[in-house]
């Protein structure tokens, strides 16, 4: 990787791209949450000094080539099979750190069985679940997490319960499994939310180092292209429509389900950007 020399003229460096991110320009659409989550994830890996012992598993979805951006060893899994691939890796390398990075179609439709059984076995890795309520990569079809009434290319009249069933809350489902240790729902729609997400990722890796079991972080994200909105509209829409269904906050902490309202809901003031 080539180092870019920027004259600092005595200025203080306030942010540097971590060495865990490559110089490759990301292909994501403007305003897409994927790039932000990549950045947060790689910052944590750099901060914790675990670049040399972390192995990531990329999904099939818009983030399929995330291995071009993450400067760590990675495997690209078949659609939905990331947690099975991660199981194979982690079982033979139990002292390494492993994560999967998966969309809603990957994790909660075609990969439902693998997701549930990896969580049920308490596989000691981190699952990052990007819920943008749509199939971004294939052009905006309905996802299992698409909201009722949501217009997608396969629900032109809006998602109907009678024909397409309900949005699935797979995060709450896996939280009921004793194999899971830390389950939280975060988002990336404003800077505060991003800071919370970073804390959650840090926590999850620490749990993995302590061999606590499966950690899953759902990131309520956006898909400006699939939602046919500009990034600002998309983040507003996310807050108004996604949060009532997928409310942010911790769902399970240290192996125990959180009873009352989430404690890490992003600050109301700051969400109004």
């Amino acid at each position: 990787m080539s180092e870019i020399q920027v004259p600092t003229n005595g200025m203080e460096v306030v942010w540097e791209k971590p060495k865990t991110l490559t110089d490759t320009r990301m292909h994501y659409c403007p305003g897409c949450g994927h790039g932000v989550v990549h950045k947060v994830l790689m910052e944590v890996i750099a901060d914790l000094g675990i670049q040399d012992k972390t192995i990531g598993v990329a999904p099939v979805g818009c983030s399929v080539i995330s291995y071009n951006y993450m400067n760590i060893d990675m495997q690209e899994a078949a659609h939905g099979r990331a947690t099975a691939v991660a199981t194979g890796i982690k079982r033979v390398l139990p002292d390494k750190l492993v994560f999967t990075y998966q969309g809603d179609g990957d994790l909660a439709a075609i990969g439902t069985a693998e997701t549930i059984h990896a969580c049920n076995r308490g596989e000691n890795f981190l699952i990052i679940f990007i819920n943008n309520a749509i199939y971004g990569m294939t052009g905006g079809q309905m996802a299992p997490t698409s909201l009722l009434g949501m217009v997608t290319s396969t629900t032109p009249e809006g998602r109907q319960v009678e024909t397409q069933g309900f949005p699935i809350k797979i995060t709450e489902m896996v939280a009921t499994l004793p194999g899971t240790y830390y389950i939280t729902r975060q988002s990336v729609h404003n800077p505060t939310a991003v800071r919370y997400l970073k804390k959650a990722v840090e926590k999850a890796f620490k749990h993995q180092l302590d061999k606590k079991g499966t950690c899953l972080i759902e990131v309520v994200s956006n898909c400006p292209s699939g939602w046919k909105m500009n990034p600002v509209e998309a983040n507003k829409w996310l807050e108004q429509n996604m949060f009532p269904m997928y409310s942010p906050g911790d769902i399970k902490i240290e192996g125990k389900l959180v009873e009352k309202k989430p404690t890490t809901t992003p600050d109301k003031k700051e969400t109004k950007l």
Partner: protein
Amino acid sequence: MSEIRLMKGNEATAEASIRAGCDAYFGYPITPQSEIIEYLSDQGRKRGMIVMQVESEVAAINMIYGAAGAGARAMTTSSSPGISLMQEGISYIACAELPCLLMNVNRGGPGLGTIQPSQGDYFQSVKGGGHGDYHLIVLAPASVQEMADFVYLGFDLADKYRNPVLLLTDGALGQMMEKVIFPDYDPKAHKLPKPWATVGKNSNRPPNVITSLHLHSDEMEKINLRLQEKYRKIEANEVRYELMNTEGADVVMIAYGLTARICQRVIELGMQSGLNVGLMRPITLYPYPYEILAKLSEQVNGFFVVEMNAGQMVEDVRLGVNGKVPVGFYGRMGGVIPTAEEILHSLQLFMKSIAVKEKV
């Protein structure tokens, strides 16, 4: 130290996998091969292997992808319906060039079919099975001894070529008990370094990436060309077969696995009634022994293929023979094992039809 045991084929495979230094086994029970996961759940775990019964064959093959990609010797086994479920994963493994060992203890299909032995999965095994242009190295054991021996050979070939290897056997070989010798085999002396494996990136190298995705068609074609080059190398170096009584034979039978065993009896019965027949037993079904067929075509009056299917390998025999002499076929389906007597009868009709006189 080598050791002699009396064992079922499935158990011999399982025992050999432990001795071959298999690091991890992922599987899902299915008759007629569940003895493997049962044996490994006891012996394998006791002797340090990671052995997991997982939620499906789909999960199992993708765990193989992960474990093999992380540098482990990994194996899964199943029977026909389970192997069908694995095909997507096998295609990914072939493209990502991950060494691993697979075994299909073939039962009768299509569909849920029967748990009785069959060779109905020949096409699936040697002609692709999953999507895209790829090949598995396919070994066909014909005895309990070979079900053990080919485990070592299979792992070594997989490592050598970075290619998945499939042992194609059947329910009868899996279930039958025979004497088996386990030779001295030191996995440490056989395992090759895997500098491409994802084990955590150190600062001296760029990240290792295991992937089968190459979005640009010129890049994807390059990958394909590289795979094809490897397959040509495998075809040049790894063809294996066995010849029996082919010297001066009028007709040579072609059969693999269990049917080859039965055809040995057909040779004996044939001799008693004055027939001079031989046998060519392919050991590698991919790469297929085409060359010896071309050579034998110059010497014999015909070939007679015996399979436990509707006629699958016979297509490869015709390719090898290339119209030089007639090719006959006898097959039973749906889990029925042909007897030596019925094969002999059909063989005699074939020989009459091509006018090879019995020397009575």
